[in-house]
């Protein structure tokens, strides 16, 4: 009945998974080529990934495998050289800058490894930023609620320089979720944090995913952090080489962190696809 609507998006059928969930992210044969003078770097060579509502996913792979490139495309910060990207059913691979800004504002919350907070700006003002650009009302109240939900209700007026690394990253998470986006994307969100702060961040992600059903996708090099998610996507040389469900995800804050080697062994077994161990990080 609504076929004519779908045909506007290039006859795109929105994928549905076994549990009947719709795809939030649906990328088809996405490639990214960086041109540096005469040299072409093929960062992505045709990636197909579907991510469904409420998924909790980590992306792993050796350095230079294209994880950040993929995340930037998923976050609409960059556009693919080839292929299609359907976000919530909307083809965003051909959108104008202005429309991409709207998509970033309304549908995506991005968390960076280096926090990217504004200097000399209070936590509350940082979190209000997406609301300002989205033209939303009741900003202070909503921003305060978002900070409350990441456990920083008593730090509203603090400047980034007055917060610990973990607290700064939690401000960044509050900023990412204040607009109630369809998903949160995070590129190595725990990369700059010690394991305790990293565990706190994981607890927040797990809770947001479990209680509010927010789709969370993040990049990590840490196998133990990755085992807190429900699905791991492995990249190598710009291609997806494995995409595995984790049978028993860890619950952040409950399990003790084992030794690095044990951890790697567990993850290797759990997601074995035939490759070598050193391809994980």
């Amino acid at each position, binding site marked *: 009945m609504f076929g004519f609507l779908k045909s506007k998006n290039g006859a795109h059928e929105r994928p549905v998974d076994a549990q009947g969930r719709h795809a939030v992210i649906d990328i088809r044969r996405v490639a990214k080529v960086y041109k540096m003078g005469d040299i072409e770097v093929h960062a992505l060579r045709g990636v197909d990934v579907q991510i469904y509502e409420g998924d909790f996913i980590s992306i792993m792979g050796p350095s230079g495998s294209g994880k950040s490139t993929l995340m*930037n495309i998923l*976050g609409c*910060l*960059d556009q693919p050289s080839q292929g299609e990207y359907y976000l919530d059913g909307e083809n965003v691979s051909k959108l104008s*800058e*202005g429309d991409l*800004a*709207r998509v*970033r*504002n*309304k549908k995506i919350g*991005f968390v*960076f490894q280096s926090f*990217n907070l*504004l*200097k000399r700006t209070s936590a509350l003002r940082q979190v209000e*930023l*997406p609301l300002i*650009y*989205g033209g939303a009302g009741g900003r202070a109240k909503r921003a305060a609620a978002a900070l409350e939900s990441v456990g920083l209700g008593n730090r509203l007026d603090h400047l980034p320089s007055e917060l610990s690394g973990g607290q700064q990253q939690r401000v960044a998470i509050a*900023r990412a979720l204040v*607009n109630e986006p369809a998903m949160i994307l995070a590129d190595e969100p725990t990369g700059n944090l010690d394991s305790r702060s990293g565990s706190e961040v994981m607890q927040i992600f797990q809770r947001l995913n479990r209680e509010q059903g927010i789709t969370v996708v993040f990049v990590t090099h840490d196998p133990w952090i990755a085992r807190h998610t429900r699905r791991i996507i492995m990249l190598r040389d710009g291609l997806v080489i494995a995409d595995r469900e984790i049978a028993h995800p860890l619950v952040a804050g409950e399990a003790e962190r084992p030794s690095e080697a044990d951890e790697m062994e567990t993850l290797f077994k759990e997601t074995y696809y035939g490759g070598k161990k050193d391809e994980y990080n």
Partner: protein
Amino acid sequence: MGRGVEDFIASEFEGLGSNLLFVFSSPPESETRVTIQPISTNEVDDLLNPRIAPSIGTIATETIVGAQLVGPQGSAQVAISGVSANYGEVRARPVLPGGAFISQGDVDAAARVVLLGTTVVETLFGDKSYNPVGEDIRVNNRSFTVIGVLEEQESGGLGILDDANNVVFAPITTVQTRLSQARTRDGGYRVDVMHVQAVNEESMDAAALEIETYLNDAHGIEFQGEQDFSIINQADLLTSLGQITGVLTIFLSMIAGISLLVGGIGIMNIMLVSVTERTREIGLRKAVGARFGDVLGQFLIESVVLSLVGGILGIMLGWLASVIGELAVPTLTLTLTSDAVILATGVSAFVGIFFGLYPAVRAARMKPIDALRFE
């Protein structure tokens, strides 16, 4: 400011009295004549004859001589102007109550009387507001009676910076016979300045021509360059001064223009540095949904605020300068008009937008991913 000076100078000259011609001896331009034949009282009498110069109404005459004045409280070396009785009206110099201007009787009798300007009163009697009428002072060691004090004048005369109150008037005959030996070859007395009032404003040029023709003949002058006198029209003075102040205004405007350009480039530079330093911030803002216009607006507002702060500082400095200027030259009224304030504010806002536009566009055009990756 340029306009203030212009108004000031124009009003200065209106104080001279209307439809006046100044005629005075001056060295000839041509080398074929080197002598100056002074204007004599006989020539003045001839010019007052309507058959010779029908366009001339009255002539006030003036002969100037330096003299030593001694009063009870001090002494002064001043130039005494010997003037005819009609000088007071022609040059509009009223006398304070209790005194009187030099009368025709004083002139006829070459009376030993003087009129003093307030500055001279202060020097000789110790107090500017002292009334010395009726008292005697010594001029070149002879006793003279003070018959009046001239009303204080803001400034005046041809020299703008001269003190119009540092003057002494005496009957012209007194100066010619008692204070100097100002005889001329034709048996008259020397006259330094003729203040000629034409019968009406339209006759100014005719009067000037009549004077020129007569004096050329009387002084035996054959070429223009040999003329040993000058005739100056008050209106001419005003136009040439208008040109000077016009040049002043253009000059000030050029300085203002150059300052604006330099300031504008300064603002552009500051904004470019600021945009570069804040590249990651711009990237972050775009990542959370800022559009082209949002970033453009942010940086434009910043540069406008920057230049407005500069403009307001400039207005405050200008106000300070006008206050200091008025203290230094009390006769000058320098006002900071609301026009100037509005103009300065508007221009600095414009400079902010104009020179802030390029940096702001550069910021707004950045791709989020490039800006975020910037180190």
